[in-house]
């Protein structure tokens, strides 16, 4: 079985595949709107000066997520 980590632990420059969203309600809707569904590839790009939020590439767009949200996205490192 593959190892799942939460997105905010994904090392900069590496890519993960979304396996599960543990968020619910509006937060989950926002994530879905961004195209974060099972199987979506996400690359960690850049930390903000204080280390949080982190910018990710999601389906061709660069999206910044706070650690609270990124922690609710479980990915499999590719």
């Amino acid at each position, binding site marked *: 079985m593959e190892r799942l980590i939460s997105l905010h632990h994904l090392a900069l420059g590496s890519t993960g595949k979304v396996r599960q969203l543990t*968020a*619910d309600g*509006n*937060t*989950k*809707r*926002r*994530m*879905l*709107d*961004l*195209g974060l*569904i*099972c199987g*979506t590839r996400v690359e960690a*790009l*850049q*930390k*903000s*000066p*204080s*280390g*949080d*939020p982190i*910018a990710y*590439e*999601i*389906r*061709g*767009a*660069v*999206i*910044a*997520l*706070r650690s*609270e*949200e990124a922690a609710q996205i479980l990915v499999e490192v590719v």
Partner: protein
Amino acid sequence: MSRRQESRDPIAPEMFRIDLNHRDLVIALAGNPNTGKSTVFNRLTGLNQHTGNWPGKTVTNAQGRYVHKDKSFLLVDLPGTYSLFANSVDEEVARDFICSGEPRITVVVTDATCLERNLNLVLQVMEITDNVVLCVNLLDEARRKQIQVDLPALSEILGIPVIGTNARDGVGLESLKDAVYQVAMGNLKTTPLHVSYGDVAEKCLRSLEPYVQGIPNNQANSRWAALRLLDGDRNSETSWAHFPLLGTGDTKEITDALALADQMLLEDHIDKAAWRDHIVTCIVTRAEEITRKVIIYGKQNYNGMDRRIDSILTSKVWGIPVMLALLGLVFWLTIEGANYPSQALASGLFWVGERLTQLFLSAGWPGWLHGLLVLGMYKTLAWVISVMLPPMAIFFPLFTLLEDLGYLPRIAFNLDNYFKKACAHGKQALTMCMGFGCNAAGVIACRIIDSPRERLIAIITNNFVPCNGRFPTLIALATVFIAGGMGAYPTIVASLSILATIVLGVVITLIVSNLLSKTILKGLPSSFTLELPPYRKPQLGRIIIRSLYDRTLFVLARAVIVAAPAGMITWMFANIYIGDLSILRHGANLLEPFANLLGLDGFILMAFILGFPANEIVIPILVMSYMSAGQMIELDSLQALRDLFLANGWTWLTAVCTMLFCLNHFPCGTTLFTIKKETQSTKWTLVTFVVTTATGIILCFAVAQSARLLGLA
């Protein structure tokens, strides 16, 4: 039922009061944020627009007309949204308008470099209406990144016209107008692709459609209506209100049909909570499939340049210093550049003032008329124009340039952690930036924040960044009092003082946001996502034209409209005597003891109160009050201003406290009115008034008293 109708979005009806010329065909313009939608809008309508005082960000719904062939089209610019599932006010506004049946055609603007995500919205719009035209914009950016979009294939798959554009250079807009025209005239039939949600879901949708078809005023697609019905918690009153199209339907029949559909879905292992996931997954997967068929990437690392820029502008070491340096540079250019034209304008306008005086004297018109019109109104106007116009004409284009480059979201990215710690929304950094131009615009921009609590915090604290009406006051005081005593490099010292004032404003914003989060607006920060759009080549021509036309002239016109009567009223207050003192002096004497505690004097406080309609006129009023004759002197140099203030007992402490009070006091009339409109609440308008003013009073009191205690002043 009527209550429900009222309870729905309070903003939408008023925003879409379209003044229809009967021959107009209404076209809605939808799209993700940062797709160049506003550029398409501006290019199509030229300067023929109603609102839209804040280009770049669609904060109010701009409308504009254009004529193509023999038809007149009314283009309505909808807020930029990622989806129509209505999480925020903006999304609700966009969805309701498309659903209303008002627009004949909906044009969806997409970014060619990020088509996959954009298609999500396109597919959703196509669920609502058949009459969709797709505009694939930013083709030049795509070409630069070697991304090829097969437009004919895309059109074939989607079943709607697809037009490639490069709106900045006006490329493709004629074809876009043609396509819109052809669809509007019925010459071109669309056959929109509908995403399939699986056998069971499709069966449920078909079973619901008959019930929504018969509902009056249901002009949207019945399939979309059925989709919406299956979405969310339908048992609560609010969800009905959320879906206005069904507000007048026979709820009993629909409820029964829904229960049946729910049952069917449950048997297919799609419970209520999973329904939304299911729908979105189908749409996103479909968008992915389509993209794979129509897009060819020429190089793997097509965003490399943006990544490299971001790795500097948002880096741990350079992020914040570069941000401060850029802002400082903007202020330095503004102050340095505005210096000469301000003086030239002032001497020119005051020369005209003297000629006016001569005219009045030689014509033998009464003295009071001369006082009212020339000394009161004209001189205040002359001051406002000469002091405000040059800095605005420099500041606005520079600020628009930063905006156009895509730098503002990076500021939000850099500062987000501080806002999170203050339990505020990350996008508050963006609305705060909008406040630099005009706080009323900043307050409206708070619509992008979807949590009501955090939106209120952003609205209440927006006034802590100085708007363009207050910059002239700050610049004048910083130049005259702070830089004036420093000798060398006065412009740099003045710029640094302004920069410090801004930083203080941001710190106060964070502290007050935090206090509000701990007290009357208790809560934790909600989730937020922030897009960092690709850096774009700025459109210099457009920046200059639009920032001058929309921002500079708009703000100046507002200031002039307020300054003219305010100048007259102030002149009257200064020249009508009760006993042996003028009304103005009576007022100032009354305020004096309190003002003194704050390091100000009665006249300064009076000027802020009289400047309530617009902050621009605070200094002119103050100057007029200080003049014993109750009129303005020939203030053709800032030195004269310094002398006048010194003669009236100013010290460095007075200047600092005045600057502090300028930064922190009640919002101007327009901003308060906008807050009332946006929050629909007198209470929160009052809270804003009290919070901002109290902050100023506390701060000035603390500074003035400590300085006096320490014997510094």
